[in-house]
């Protein structure tokens, strides 16, 4: 699909490609982005009516844990990108290893988040504590569930990779799982900034 020319005076643009992976996952991705987007907007507007409450409550959050999770997800996403590149060249073994790496980091994310939740509950924070904590818990829990979902998909892809079901010419499954995982990463990037950082 990329054309090769040695005559540099005549540039041929590479043909634009369809969205990576199965198109159905992209409908799902857009739907999820829509829902999270509405939640983010609701958070922003709820905050505008309770600025002091939100600022004070935000300060009690474990920003280090959140930051660590951000680095974990970004790196995990990167590993998935590398997995995709590997299978595009037919290197199933490398793909499998990159995916394992991504899943490990995802598991660490879940672990850190669980520890953070435990700390929150130990301090008596729950959905009814105040409006900020309601959003914080609901949003991060909701995202948490999507991390699990993404990992289930990646695990299925990893198993398929291990059993040699993908190849350089047929790896839609990898791209599909990768796309969903990047969405999970993207949502966290916005969520972290909005809930933990911006004030």
């Amino acid at each position, binding site marked *: 699909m990329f054309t090769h020319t040695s005559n540099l005076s005549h540039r041929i643009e590479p043909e634009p490609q369809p969205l990576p992976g199965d198109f*159905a996952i992209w*409908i*799902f991705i857009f*739907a*999820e982005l*829509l*829902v999270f987007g*509405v*939640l983010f907007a*609701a958070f922003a507007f*709820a905050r505008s009516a309770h600025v002091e409450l939100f600022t004070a409550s935000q300060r009690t959050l474990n920003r280090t844990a959140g930051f660590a999770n951000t680095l974990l997800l970004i790196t995990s996403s990167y590993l998935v990108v590398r997995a995709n590149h590997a299978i595009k060249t037919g290197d199933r073994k490398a793909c499998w290893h990159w995916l394992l790496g991504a899943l490990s980091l995802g598991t660490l994310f879940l672990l850190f988040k669980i520890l953070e939740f435990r700390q929150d509950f130990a301090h008596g924070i729950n*959905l*009814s504590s105040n*409006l900020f904590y*309601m*959003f914080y818990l*609901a949003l991060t829990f909701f995202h948490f569930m999507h991390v699990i979902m993404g990992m289930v998909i990646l695990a299925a892809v990893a198993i398929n990779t291990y059993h040699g079901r993908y190849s350089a010419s047929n790896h839609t499954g990898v791209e599909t799982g990768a796309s969903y995982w990047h969405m999970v990463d993207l949502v966290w990037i916005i969520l972290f900034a909005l809930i933990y950082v911006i004030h």
Partner: protein
Amino acid sequence: MKYKSQKVAMPYFIAALALFLGQIIFGLIAGLQYLHGTFLFPALPFDVAHMSHTNLLIVWLLMAFMGAAYFIVPEEAETELYSPKLALITFWIFLVAGGLTIAAYLLVPYAKLAEVTGNAVLPTMGRGYLEQPLPTKIGIVLVALSLLFNVTMTLIKGRKTSINLILVGSLWGLAILFLPAFYFPQDTVKASFGWWWIVHGWVEGDWELILGALLGFILIKMTGVDREIVEKWLYIIVAMTLISGIIGIGHHYYYTGAPGYWIWLGSIFSAIEPIPFILLIAFSFKMLLQRRREHPNSAAMLWALGTPIMAFLGAGLWGFIITLAPAQYYMHGTNFTAAHGHLAFFGAYAMVSLAIISYAMPILRGRVANSNSAQRWEIIGFWTMVLSMIAITLALTGAGIVTVVLQRAADNPMGFMQVQDKARVFFWIREFAGVTFLLGLLVYLRSFFIKGEYMYADEVKRALAA
């Protein structure tokens, strides 16, 4: 009819339509009692007319869904139904139990009915739509299990398509979601909380999936569009339904004593609930435009296209009006809810049931489609019912506005009965529209008795002459 066992759908469909007629008669009685409170009192008081109206609705829709399952699952699975005999026995049990229940409502004072049917052992009576005595409720579970066993065994031995997977899966969901009917705590907050798992879980979740499967089946058969395209649409619709509807249940929890975070979660997620209905409209019209054939059953096509539109109006639009917490603060439990409920139930579930009946009945009777004159009656029935229901909805919306203005949002609110009095004109309009609805239903039912099948030869002659 591809498989002989599909025939068991017929008694279910016939019973469904008969119970539908019963539902409307009780509806007219109840509607008249809004205007003359002592009409038929004490023989048939309002509460009995009301619960007969609502219970008959649920039972006829369940009959229709079951008939649809017995018609669709064998055809999709490409194998005969596991046990037609079981389906028929189940039908009679369901019909007789349902009939006895309505008779009990009419003939036995409710408290006495509770006493003699063992409500003290496990209290389940007294909540809306769940007025049935304990034995009836157990009967419903057994009937559901029988259906599930039958269609699941058929599915296991046959071809698994998206349509029959979604249909059978959501029938399992329907049965499981009925179980909270047996959970009736003393605490009214908790009781209300659990009640919605059934009601919301059904009509704003599980039943939408049934609707999608039924509509998908009808459109594949009638338009000849590629199955894979239909399946992709259905998956998206199913996904959006669940994404919006599961936490969307919170829009019933704002002002019923549940924790305050539901105001946010319910508003945000239920605001998304209209999307699957928009997708259903897009889907069905896209199928129409991409059709590869002109199916002779125009009436069924009309039902199939009218359903998503009316469903969107009733469930999506009217639902959205009352769903956001700040708006619901004023409109909760007013006739806005009744308006939404009527248009949504009819537009989505009654109409999809009538659509599958419209498609399947001629086939069950041995022809591709009914004669032109039968279809004409059916189509007149369609339009009369649809327009009447829109009128009912607008009338109830008017009554709702009166309540909000005079009672909810007013600085000096008027009392409830006073406000009901002010809304009388709207209740009259509603009743009048209810009568025309009944006429439409009778015209529709008449269409089944007009003889003759679709005459291809006549159509060709007419086309050539033109």
